[in-house]
């Protein structure tokens, strides 16, 4: 009874505080939530999702035709898997390839200077014929070079880039190829990533929630609006000729985002295919996750603000879609983060007492957005029973996305802007990072 009264008291206090908030105060301190976040994540996302899903149903005949065309042509597809010390995942990968509904595939695995027994495992699979081409670099050269080596010897009409530790749904290859036949001039198709190890730890559970919102739903929306700009390296398909023309991947980290930008610059469509599902393993500890996200966030500065700075310049190659895609990415990922910190600090200095009202209020708003997005993703995700079980974690989403992710991202942006941290990341060998820095790659 005591605890119940505390809860009741809390709610009474909370509502009293909310009543104190008028529109003016809300706009003064949180205009970016009301004017940017809510329109962006609720209105635009909701409408685009409805648009995308309904178009699918209306044009289902065309999708069927596209599938028919794929099966009539039945082109060879190269599944390209570059990796460093990934030997232990190869048997699962091979098994997942054998289960594919689309079987005209060539599996190319590139071992980028592994120091474990990857070479032996890979070679034995090559001997058995489970891996069509197993390539090995004696010296580690970085993920881009490994992918490029595989590309050099690939023969398929399409290249499906895959991480060694991800496993595909049985119809994933077929599904990721159909958009190439559904629309003309498609330069890349990104697959849908679903977290596979969501029950490993709270870290992975939160990532599961994040992925269904920002990847499954978020990318449908971006793709429909023509703003989709990162075909994830974990699962993406490209026409081989286009990759050959570009000379493949450039040095990462974030090489998947970089190549997507290059494809967009050439004027090709980049699409997301939510039905092509890839189950992916995500970092299980906060430390590992932080490391991964810092790497991803640095690439925003490195590629969007440095290497591809020309997208912002209105010259003869200027494209509004690319500009908006970049703007959306940089604004919601970069500018808003700094603005968020700026306003929080400002409140802290000007009216610290106000935070007691402001934080619960903001939390309520973002929780509302999270619940809305969660409901949206219900229409996209196939495994609904799993999703239902996860709904108890929704209250943590605003904290995870709003505080943890913001903090990690902001630290990474600052590190990259002022200290060029991505060039020091051991993810790439020093010899390539040195050259990348020298030439601004």
């Amino acid at each position, binding site marked *: 009874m005591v605890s119940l009264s505390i809860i009741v008291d809390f709610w009474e206090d909370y509502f009293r505080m909310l009543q104190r908030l008028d529109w003016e105060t809300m706009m003064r301190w949180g205009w970016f939530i009301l004017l940017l976040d809510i329109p962006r994540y609720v209105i635009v996302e909701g409408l685009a999702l409805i648009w995308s899903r309904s178009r699918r149903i209306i044009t289902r005949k065309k999708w069927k035709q596209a599938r028919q065309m794929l099966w009539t042509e039945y082109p060879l597809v190269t599944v390209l898997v570059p990796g460093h010390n990934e030997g232990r995942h190869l048997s699962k990968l091979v098994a997942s390839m054998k289960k594919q509904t689309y079987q005209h595939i060539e599996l190319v695995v590139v071992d980028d200077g592994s120091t474990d027994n990857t070479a032996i495992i890979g070679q034995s699979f090559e*001997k058995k014929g489970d891996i069509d081409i197993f*390539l090995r670099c*004696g010296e580690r050269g970085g993920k881009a*070079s490994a992918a490029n*080596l595989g590309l050099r*010897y690939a023969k398929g009409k399409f290249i499906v880039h895959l991480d060694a530790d991800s496993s595909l749904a049985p119809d994933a290859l077929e599904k990721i190829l159909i958009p190439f036949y559904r629309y003309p001039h498609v330069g890349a198709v990104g697959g849908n990533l679903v977290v596979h190890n969501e029950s490993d730890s709270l870290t992975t559970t939160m990532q599961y929630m994040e992925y269904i919102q920002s990847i499954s739903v978020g990318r449908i929306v971006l793709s429909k609006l023509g703003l989709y700009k990162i075909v994830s390296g974990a699962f993406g398909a490209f026409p081989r000729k286009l990759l050959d023309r570009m*000379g*493949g991947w*450039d040095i990462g980290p974030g090489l998947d985002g970089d190549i997507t930008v290059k494809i967009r610059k050439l004027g090709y469509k980049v699409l997301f295919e939510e039905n092509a599902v890839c189950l992916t393993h995500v970092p299980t500890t906060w430390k590992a996750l932080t490391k991964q996200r810092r790497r991803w966030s640095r690439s925003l500065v490195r590629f969007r603000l440095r290497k591809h700075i020309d997208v912002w310049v209105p010259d003869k190659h200027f494209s509004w879609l690319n500009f908006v895609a970049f703007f959306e990415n940089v604004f919601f990922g970069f500018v808003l983060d700094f603005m968020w910190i700026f306003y929080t600090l400002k409140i802290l200095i000007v009216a610290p007492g106000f935070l007691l009202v402001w934080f619960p209020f903001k939390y309520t708003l973002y929780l509302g957005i999270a619940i809305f997005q969660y409901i949206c993703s219900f229409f996209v995700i196939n495994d609904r029973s799993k999703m239902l079980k996860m709904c108890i974690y929704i209250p943590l989403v605003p904290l995870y996305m709003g505080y943890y992710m913001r903090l990690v991202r902001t630290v990474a942006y600052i590190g990259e802007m002022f200290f060029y941290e991505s060039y020091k990341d051991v993810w790439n060998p020093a010899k390539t990072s040195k*050259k990348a820095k020298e030439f601004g790659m």
Partner: protein
Amino acid sequence: MSEITPHVVEMYGRRILLLSNFIEDCILPDPLIADMWLVNHQDRTKVRKFLRSVVCSHDMRVYLKPIYLEDSLRSFFMDDERVMQRLSDGFLGNADPLQIATLIDQVAYFIEKHGRGRKKKASQQEQILQYIFDYNYTRRRKIVPMRLHQSLTGYTYPRIDSFFFNMSDAYLNSRIILKEAEEQGYLKRTYFDTQHLCKSCNSGFLNYHEVCPRCNEHNLKASNLIHHFRCAYVGPETDFVFHNKLVCPKCSVQLKNVGVDYDKPGKMFTCKSQSCNHQFQEAPIQVCCVDCGTKQEPYELVVKKVYQYELSEKGIQRFLFNEDQVSLQHG
């Protein structure tokens, strides 16, 4: 036989028979007319044939006879020089007169002591061992294998192999003779070498091919892979070659310093067979026998050890003295 007039010269009180006429007709001279024989014929085939017939002779006085080669023949013997030396007592110039005199005396004493009343051995194998013991005992020599590309496996025991007429017989029989003698304790062996031989014909003359894992053809082209650091392009060296320079096909920059601009992380094979054109990194090795043409995997090759042998005390008793005891008992 008597048609040939033996040409005997005297030196330091020893009679030396010059063999040229006998070699020409391949006739064994009477062992009694000289203490020592000298080979002075230039035709290496004939000399070899003659020396082999000496080795195979049943007459102890013939096969133990000190035989030297004239130094001037060295150039005529060519590749056979080492075999000739093994089948004889070597070049005259390499031996000093005292050595020769000692050998002559030793042989004469040996024949005196063991020559009489010796019975023929029951089997050819025993008989050959008997000759070997006699010879190696008088010469204080070991039975050392010799590298020789005219032999089946690449190794030969020239004196033993002389008893057989084709290479394959020679290889198999000499192995058996030596192995059994060693097992019975008559010979002591020490390790000399290991050989990998054809599984079907025991030949040691093998050709090792890197083959295409898909079509088994061995017409391959190997190319180094080059990784250009700056743009992450990786491809075979042929992609980069442009007017005797290395130029990156992706970013058109010239590659200058290995280790700084680029490195070579591996190599790549291309099968040149028109119907295959397979590209791969790990080329399996296939072995093709030059003699019989059998193709085989390296693990299928027959692994044999080659030993050098020496006479054991037991063997010397058995082959050189035991017989005396037997004859004494009979006497």
